[in-house]
């Protein structure tokens, strides 16, 4: 570097730091919130609104809230304190009184510990399945084992547990059963349907898959649930009438399957043709090509829309309310039907929303982490 010819220009490193280095909360606020008189006005107006609503919510939910109410003379709770605070403070006493009904519905009160264990088992199953170091063949066994234990706990009738028919199951276990079985069955179904729809060698299969997807996507889930609960029994032979919960489960599976199939198909189409050709050229057969090369990439590509659909269906299971299945939302609704608590449905719905949010938000965070992890290895 010692002998640079005259006229040979060497760029000097710039002294100015790049603009992104001018950081800090104040600088951020200046560029994003107060960069013109209009945005300053909008910021101030919205800030005022948020502050007002925030403080009145905090006052309602915490400061003026009634947390417990005393036992009345006739052996039931006396919501007089809540009535006094109505419109000013929340009545969380309804939750303390009703939380077991909200969580477990009409499941026999003295047996609800079984339903509680089931909820814990489901959550444990999700956590274990989420950890990559458990992504082995043994995971299938873990699922089969856990689901068997869940079945035994819910139904009972063996091991000294009293039998509980599924017509009186309810609450969070029903929501978890419908969504877990729904997605666990719908997802493999969706992969097969997506592959079928892309088949070039079997036009009949392709037609069938297109027909299935379009038919199911063409009707709302509610009408499918009505069909499952009202119309379906009419067509079934006498004596062969599967239970209402099972019928709703099948409807959810079919519905979720059609939607997920389209998401998976998008992933299949997003892969360059060269990946298919390279897999063909090294002699992998159809199923190995799909299983080892195409699907692992295609599914990673569609993690965001896939999780989006998962979250959607977790919440959509609440639609079984309209055919009288006792899921989390239904049991919350029934809980506030009781005369003394009728005025406090808001409190119950807030708690229900928090439960749904906890599950959906975990799914969302998990998928973000998964994307980041996969992004590391597949950065092109």
């Amino acid at each position, binding site marked *: 570097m010692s002998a640079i010819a005259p006229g040979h220009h060497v760029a000097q490193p710039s002294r100015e730091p790049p603009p992104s280095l001018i950081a800090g909360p104040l600088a951020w606020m200046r560029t994003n919130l107060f960069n013109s008189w209009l945005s300053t006005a909008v910021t101030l107006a919205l800030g005022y609104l948020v502050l007002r609503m925030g403080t009145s919510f905090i006052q309602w939910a915490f400061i003026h809230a009634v947390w417990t109410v005393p036992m009345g003379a006739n052996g039931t709770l006396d919501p007089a304190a809540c009535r006094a605070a109505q419109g000013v403070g929340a009545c969380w006493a309804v939750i303390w009184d009703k939380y077991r009904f909200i969580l477990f519905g009409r499941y026999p009160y003295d047996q609800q510990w079984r339903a509680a264990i089931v909820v814990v088992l489901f959550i444990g199953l999700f956590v274990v399945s989420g950890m990559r170091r458990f992504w082995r063949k043994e995971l299938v066994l873990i699922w089969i084992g856990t689901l068997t234990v869940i079945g035994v706990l819910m139904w009972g009738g063996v091991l000294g547990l009293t039998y509980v028919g599924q017509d009186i199951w309810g609450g969070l276990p029903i929501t978890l059963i419908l969504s877990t079985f729904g997605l666990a069955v719908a997802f493999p179904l969706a992969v097969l349907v997506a592959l079928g729809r892309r088949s070039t060698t079997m036009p009949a299969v392709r037609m069938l898959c297109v027909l299935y997807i379009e038919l199911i996507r063409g009707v709302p889930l509610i009408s499918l649930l009505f069909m499952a609960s009202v119309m379906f029994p009419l067509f079934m032979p006498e004596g062969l009438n599967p239970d209402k919960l099972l019928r709703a489960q099948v409807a959810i599976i079919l519905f979720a399957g059609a939607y997920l199939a389209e998401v998976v198909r998008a992933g299949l189409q997003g892969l*360059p043709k*060269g*990946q298919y*050709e*390279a*897999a*063909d*050229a*090294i*002699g*992998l*057969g159809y199923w*190995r090509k799909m299983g*080892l*090369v195409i699907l*692992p*990439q295609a599914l*990673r590509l569609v993690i965001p829309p896939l999780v989006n659909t998962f979250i959607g269906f977790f919440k959509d299971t609440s639609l079984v309310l309209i055919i009288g299945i006792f899921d989390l939302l239904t049991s919350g609704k029934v809980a506030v039907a009781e005369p003394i608590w009728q005025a406090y449905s808001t409190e119950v719905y807030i708690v229900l929303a928090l439960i749904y949010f906890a599950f959906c938000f975990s799914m969302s965070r998990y998928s973000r982490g998964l994307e980041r992890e*996969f992004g590391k*290895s*597949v*950065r*092109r």
Partner: protein
Amino acid sequence: MSQSVTGEAPAILLDKVNKWFGVLHVLRDVSMTVAQKEKVVVCGPSGSGKSTLIRCINRLETHQEGRIVVDGTELTDDTRSLDTIRREVGMVFQSFNLFPHLTILENCTLAPIWVRKIPKAEAEELAMSFLTRVKIPEQAKKYPGQLSGGQQQRVAIARALCMRPKIMLFDEPTSALDPEMIKEVLDTMIGLAEDGMTMVCVTHEMGFARQVADRVVFMDRGEIVESGTPAEMFENPQTDRLQLFLSQILRGH
């Protein structure tokens, strides 16, 4: 034109092969024989059908008329014969087509393990020996996205070799590479040719053709216009079309 070097059965035989894409006639009565251990370079202007021709040999494209026999097995709709042929024929693509979700080593062991049913340890040993041969054993644990184009293409060659093919097909292997990386890939291919691999190579690298090809085939508009040794073809082109093509190629280089 279809002389066999040693007199044994040809590695590849094409007999009056015709193919259409819709109404576009992309291969017209193409007949050609590739002897065992012969190195054939296919060249021609873009759209001449040379890539389609080579892709018909391992049935990435299907031909509609004529016969293609590879290593004694005729290409038909029968999937069993197709599996056999794809095991024996390796292919290297213009765009590498490595599997981005697998490491370099996994890319190389995938087919040996799942198609040839070789135990994993043995397949890895084999893969490492081929990666050493293409001079990148130290990249084995990396992912394709972390390698340069030239390195990726050498991995692609190693991946094909791991199936121990009798025939290697190259579809413009250097066309997607930056100029400084072309040589490392060509050197790998030259090494392969020196070891006696049967090769069919679509390329515009005339230096490579001169150095390794036993025969150059010139295609234009879906048909084989001229073929012969590199010396005959380059020094004494018989047809106007080849003359025009050569002048364009040379001007480009």
